[in-house]
């Protein structure tokens, strides 16, 4: 029955609810800059009215639940875009290091090749000149040194990628363990129909970090979320996480295993996928190009050497160390000749003949097994390295923009607005003050009632 007591009880409840609302607003403000935090709102509900004769009276307010505001589909889109961004960024970073080795066209293998053949051309005007012959040896050694230093540096980049594989895998394992633990806390709450709020925020944030590393598929089950890699290898099922392991595999590189199966080739997304793509595809391509160039050049030049005679009239010998074609030819590229006399310029055995220089020079235009001449082969390599890097950079920029867009959307749905919370503070403060005033008013009314009772008694 409506009366002072009912009004007092409504006001008291209101005081409590406004306090709770203030607490939610305070928590939102406190977490305004917390990564992954979704703003919370207190779900207020009007109490069921009571009927008094023919009238219905309201009975105040109660707080239903604290609800986190998030769009789960948007979160999934962000995971996907994050893994693409991580992938492109990892490739772009590594490939920019690789292209740095080929960025100055006035130095390096290309310039050395030209200088080498030019020094041979110079010898054609004076075949017996020792200084010119010496300059051919110098040019050949420069070429060998640049082959070596390029291969060494490409190897070093590949090695760094390999190190980062191990690091990524250990980060992934750490994240999946944490996610499985959170699943264990969230699932019971959800089964009771309760909001897991902050815990879900944490889990989403961790899945976001995991997406940065590799592509993750998220499926919901009654045990919580199930996470698997792009090709379906389970990472987290309910409260169980499955650790990935690494072991040294073919070529001395780290391979990734899930429960004993090598899944290295199937990991294509995220930072790990990007690192693996550079380590296992781009860099081996560069090295194999260099090997083809070095091996083919050495073989062709040696063959041309043997068609002529050196300054002493002897048949030409191998000028470069004969390399087995295939892997390692660039690293093994070496100038065997140490004596300037060894250059087989002569075609008739007399020292002044330059007849075989035409054969040596022809090597510059002779096609390598790749189907291109040495300088064309190198130019193609520069194009490939630049093109890969350019594509990865463009991809990184595009995914970054799209991720920024998605994050804006997420922020629009789930982000904390200081202005909004300030407004809420004012609203709830006003309501609190009003409820307090109601209580003091009822107090006065009650006092009045007591006074009446006292004076009549």
């Amino acid at each position: 029955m409506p009366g002072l007591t009912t009004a007092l009880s409504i006001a008291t409840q209101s005081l409590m609810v406004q306090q709770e609302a203030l607490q939610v607003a305070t928590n939102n403000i406190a977490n305004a800059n917390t990564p992954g935090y979704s703003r919370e709102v207190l779900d207020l509900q009007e109490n069921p009215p009571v009927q008094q004769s023919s009238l219905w009276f309201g009975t105040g307010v109660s707080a239903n639940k604290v609800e986190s505001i998030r769009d789960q589909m948007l979160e999934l889109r962000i995971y996907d875009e994050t893994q693409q961004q991580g992938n492109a960024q990892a490739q772009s970073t590594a490939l920019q290091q690789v292209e740095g080795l080929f960025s100055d066209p006035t130095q390096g293998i290309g310039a050395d090749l030209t200088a080498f053949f030019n020094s041979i051309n110079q010898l054609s005007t004076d075949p017996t000149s020792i200084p010119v012959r010496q300059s051919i040896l110098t040019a050949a050694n420069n070429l060998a040194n640049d082959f070596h230093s390029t291969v060494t540096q490409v190897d070093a980049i590949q090695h760094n990628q390999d190190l980062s594989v191990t690091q990524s895998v250990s980060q992934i394992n750490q994240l999946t363990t944490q996610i499985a633990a959170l699943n264990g806390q969230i699932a019971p709450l959800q089964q009771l129909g309760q909001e897991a709020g902050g815990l879900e925020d944490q889990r989403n944030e961790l899945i976001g970090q995991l997406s940065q590393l590799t592509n993750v598929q998220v499926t919901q089950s009654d045990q919580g979320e199930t996470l698997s890699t792009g090709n379906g290898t389970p990472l987290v099922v309910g409260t169980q996480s499955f650790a990935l392991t690494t072991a040294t595999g073919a070529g001395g590189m780290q391979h990734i295993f899930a429960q004993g199966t090598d899944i290295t080739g199937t990991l294509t997304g995220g930072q790990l996928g990007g690192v693996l793509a550079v380590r296992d595809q781009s860099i081996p391509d560069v090295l194999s190009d260099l090997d083809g160039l070095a091996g083919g050049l050495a073989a062709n030049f040696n063959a041309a050497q043997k068609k002529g005679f050196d300054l002493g009239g002897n048949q030409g010998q191998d000028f470069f160390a004969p390399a087995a074609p295939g892997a390692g030819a660039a690293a093994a590229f070496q100038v065997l000749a140490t004596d300037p006399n060894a250059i087989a310029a002569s075609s008739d055995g007399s020292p002044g003949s330059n007849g075989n220089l035409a054969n040596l020079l022809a090597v510059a235009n002779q096609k390598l097994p790749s189907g291109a001449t040495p300088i064309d082969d190198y130019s193609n390599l520069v194009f490939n390295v630049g093109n890969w890097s350019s594509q990865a950079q463009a991809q990184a920029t595009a995914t970054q923009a799209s991720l920024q867009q998605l994050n804006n959307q997420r922020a629009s749905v789930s982000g904390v607005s200081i202005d909004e919370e300030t407004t809420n503070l004012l609203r709830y403060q006003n309501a609190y003050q009003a409820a307090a005033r109601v209580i003091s008013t009822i107090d006065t009314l009650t006092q009045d009632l007591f006074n009446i009772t006292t004076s009549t008694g």
Partner: protein
Amino acid sequence: MRVTNLTQNVLAAIWQAQDNEQTALEQLSSGKRVNRPSDDPAAAAEDVLNLSQQAQVDQYTQSTNSLNGLFQTADSALGSAINALNQAVSLGTQGANGTLSTANRQALAASIQGALDQVVQLANTSYQGSYIFGGTAVTSAPFSVVAGVVTYTTANGNAGINQATIADGLSIQTNVPGSQLFMQPGSNVIGSLEQLIAAVQSGDSTATSNATTAVSSALNYLSTQRVFYGNAMNQVSDEQTTLSQESTNLKSQENTLVGVDMAQAATQLTQAQTDDQAVLAAAAKVLPMTLLNYLPPG
């Protein structure tokens, strides 16, 4: 729309503006539009070939300079030999006069011997340490006097010919072997001089006259052979003009490929700076603003 992450957007805008600034600055300071292969992969690859061609053209130019020196030396040696032969012809014509005394004939013969010695010396001309008329045997003098007779032995000189490449697909012959120049059967420069000396010494007017005719015909032959070097010098000189033109073309092509339009880059830098300042100014105004700025304290 609820906007709650203004800072991230503002930061992204600042980074974008500064990235543009950095690119414009790099292009201005290097003078190049392509500073790494990924800036324009096709142009970077083309640039590798362009620079290789430029270096090759420089090398061809250097080769033509060396060859020019060689050809001039050879040409001037042959010119002097022709003068010596002219002198021998006029001495031979005097020797054919039957009224000369023995002493005069000996004197004439000695003068002709002098001309022969000079021709042999010229035939042994060297350029930068190599004997230029020894065929491809250039390390020792090709002509030597063996038992009073000038010989061209295969041990010292041969009939070998060298070629040098002075442009893509263009090789030129760089020497004429001494045997062909000075001992060609039928137009034997040295043989006819030796014959003339013997004839003058013997006092046989007819033989002297015949020998003088032979020297004269050898002289004509040598003049014809000398044309080779004249032509070669012309060819080298023509090629130098072509190479110089090619070098200019390649440099201009390189500039088109990887060079930057300075005016445009400077404009871009100014634009990027303006953008950067505008973004920073906007950020300074927008970021500190919340409702709290307008609420009374407390």
